[in-house]
């Protein structure tokens, strides 16, 4: 028996374990494997192989039984995921259904999850804007959360490292609040967007529209061919998985790259119960895993553990990793684990029409849009709310057809090719303030199918968010009107937090172990061989889409871990 234990311990031992194969876990795995560490990646969901497991990727619109619509029965059973814009007939198989993985909503929270190889990196909107020191210095300047233990210069080389590998299309805009990166050729702004950009230059010189930087390959094809990827073909069917590898996902890029080193082991259907802490050694020694199908428990061991389970699941695993040293969860000496969770405020939007530029239209499809970098409270505090918002902005033109008729009149109308006015639109991406009351915790009674406590989520908007929504709508309306846009409509869809799919924090980084969970290298203060480099590590949220920053953190943390393994 003793021999057996020793043998299984040896078989189940690795240099490193990565929990989660999504955006940041894939990056941790790639970097660890490249540096020669035998690495086990634990993925709780099923295997999704690049290309061969994208069943809908080459389907034509008419090949979907309901032409994209999700049937009523599925919607009724899964109201949360059904509210996600990308949960459509072509990509529904990559989303977690509400019924399969319940959680407790103390306040309404739409938790969007992807349990499979690559996680949500298959489904993301691929926006990759860098943070700047206006973001990292935010909490210290404005007196909320805690000071970030790093600044832009600490992360800049890692942003570059990540961007070069994943492929980022963008324009060097020279903005101090949205630093330039390693860019492949940008997508074009449309004539309508260029008009608005020019309008802003003349009337609001501190505001600018740029083309949003996105993780798509638009050049240097030879370099990306080594990953088995090629140029984006403008299909904009990304959520199905891309047969060209035109956008970045773990499936198309980091995981196959890691596998090529011979150092990667992937374990699917591996639901992590907790991280094992050895009190005698004063460090984590491994991970306790429940097989999703057989529900058998297995332990895996490693010198270093990367926790990349997605922001809230990472909190859950840490909270569930209790020992006599850490009765409130691994590394939770401060008591802040699970607290100061925040997200992005995507509630408001605006649309309108523009009656000019009649001689222009657009052709083809573009997997990104215009982007309005944050202009509120950047250099000084100028409003009655803290922080600010970035915004998407797009202007496009399409054919209009009058489908109101019956019979021959309708058939003729359907064949007509007549351009409508330019349509303009924007949606806000507001920074929210992490607060102690915004938290996740373990339900004392309810458990999931694997015996793991269900997560309780208690997040909400606050007065700062409401003030920001008001300001966004006022400012956008004013600019739209002044630019000559008509039929302006504003909206506040009152969506619950979560639909932004940018939940962050709970195991925040900080200088002081008394008020934070992670140090400046993403190590748990009191258990430094555990690194958290997904959304859980975030001290504040900024306005920029966060995935690029998680990837940069993951690469930087692996570098640190390997240099310090001794």
């Amino acid at each position, binding site marked *: 028996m003793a021999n057996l234990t020793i043998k299984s311990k040896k078989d189940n031992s690795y240099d490193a374990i990565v929990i989660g194969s999504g955006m940041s876990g894939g990056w941790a795995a790639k970097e660890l494997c490249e540096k020669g560490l035998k690495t086990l990646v634990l993925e709780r969901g099923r295997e999704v192989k690049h290309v061969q497991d994208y069943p809908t990727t*080459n389907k*034509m*619109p*008419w090949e979907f*039984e*309901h*032409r994209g*619509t*999700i*049937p*009523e*029965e599925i919607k*009724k059973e899964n109201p949360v995921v059904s509210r996600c814009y990308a949960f459509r007939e072509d990509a529904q198989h990559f989303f977690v259904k509400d019924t399969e993985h319940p959680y407790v909503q103390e306040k309404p929270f739409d938790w969007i999850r992807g349990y499979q190889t690559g996680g949500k990196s298959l489904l993301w909107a691929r926006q990759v804007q860098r943070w700047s020191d206006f973001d990292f210095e935010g909490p210290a300047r404005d007196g909320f959360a805690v000071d970030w233990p790093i600044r832009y210069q600490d992360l800049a080389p890692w942003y570059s490292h990540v961007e070069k590998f994943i492929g980022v299309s963008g324009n060097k805009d020279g903005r101090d609040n949205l630093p330039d990166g390693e860019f492949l050729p940008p*997508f*074009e*702004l*449309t*004539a309508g*967007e*260029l008009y608005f950009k020019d309008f802003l230059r003349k009337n609001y010189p501190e505001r600018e529209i740029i083309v949003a930087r996105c993780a798509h390959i638009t050049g240097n094809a030879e370099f990306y061919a080594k990953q088995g990827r090629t140029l984006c*073909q*403008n*299909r904009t*069917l990304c959520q199905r998985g891309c047969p060209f590898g035109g956008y970045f996902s773990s499936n198309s890029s980091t995981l196959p790259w890691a596998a090529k080193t011979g150092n990667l082991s992937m374990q699917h259907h591996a639901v992590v119960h907790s991280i094992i802490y050895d009190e005698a050694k004063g460090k984590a020694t491994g991970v306790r895993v429940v097989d999703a199908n057989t529900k058998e428990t297995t332990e895996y061991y490693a010198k270093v553990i990367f926790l990349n389970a997605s922001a809230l699941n990472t909190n859950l695993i840490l909270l569930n990793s209790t020992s006599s040293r850490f009765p409130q969860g691994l590394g939770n000496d401060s008591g802040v684990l699970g607290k100061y969770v925040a997200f992005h405020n995507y509630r408001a939007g605006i649309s309108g029409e523009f009656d000019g530029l*009649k*001689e*222009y*239209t*657009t*052709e*083809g*499809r*573009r997997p990104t849009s215009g982007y309005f970098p944050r202009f509120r409270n950047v250099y000084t505090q100028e409003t009655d709310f803290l922080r600010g918002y970035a915004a998407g902005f797009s202007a496009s033109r399409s054919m209009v057809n009058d*489908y109101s008729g*019956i*019979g*021959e009149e*309708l*058939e*003729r109308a*359907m*064949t007509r090719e007549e*351009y409508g006015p330019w349509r303009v639109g924007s949606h806000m991406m507001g920074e929210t303030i992490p607060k102690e009351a915004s938290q996740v915790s373990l339900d004392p009674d309810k458990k999931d199918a694997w015996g793991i406590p269900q997560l309780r989520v208690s997040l909400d908007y606050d007065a700062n968010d409401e003030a920001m929504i008001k300001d966004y709508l006022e400012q956008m309306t004013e600019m739209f009107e002044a630019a000559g846009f008509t039929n302006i409509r504003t909206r506040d869809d009152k969506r619950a937090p979560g639909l932004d799919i940018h939940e962050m924090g709970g195991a925040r980084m900080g200088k002081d172990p008394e008020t934070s969970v992670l140090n400046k290298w993403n190590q748990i203060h009191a258990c430094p061989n555990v690194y958290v480099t997904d959304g859980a590590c975030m001290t504040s949220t900024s306005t920029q889409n966060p995935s690029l920053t998680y990837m940069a953190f993951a690469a930087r943390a692996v570098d640190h871990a390997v240099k310090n393994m001794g």
Partner: protein
Amino acid sequence: MDRRSAMKQLAILTGGAVLMPACDFSEESILQAYQNLKITASQKELLTRIIATVFPGKVLKSGPDLQLQDFVLVMCNDCLDRGQQETFVAGLQQWEAFSNNQYGKKFSQMNATEAEDCLRATLAMDGEGDEKKNATAFISTTKRFALQGYLNSEYFMTEIKPYELVPARFYGSKKIETA
């Protein structure tokens, strides 16, 4: 309401004179493909006539040529909630009697022009009372799904306005030739 009494009600509403090849209402079977709707082959036939009126095939292929009756029923069966389904089915069941009362002729007996006018008038109607509401909802739902099916059909997306699966380009300021 069970199927038998639904059929009886239909018979009463329509004065027993709907076009039903099986003749005996009580024995006409429910189409198994649309479990949530519980409609008969003859009701589907009537729906097909409506779709043929919306898309008669004068400029493009006709709606029935593209099997839009199947698509409309699939969408109603799978993508409407219970209440919407009940309204749709009630509207379909009452359609012959309704058109007779409202326009002086059963829809199935109208010529093409009359049928078109009847659909136009029904779509423009202010729905007072259940029967009017059901009829308007039934026709507008039928037209909406038929149009969706048409615009997303292989025929339309290859021969009339070709869809590109792989555009491989994007131009933000394309000059319109004829402008």
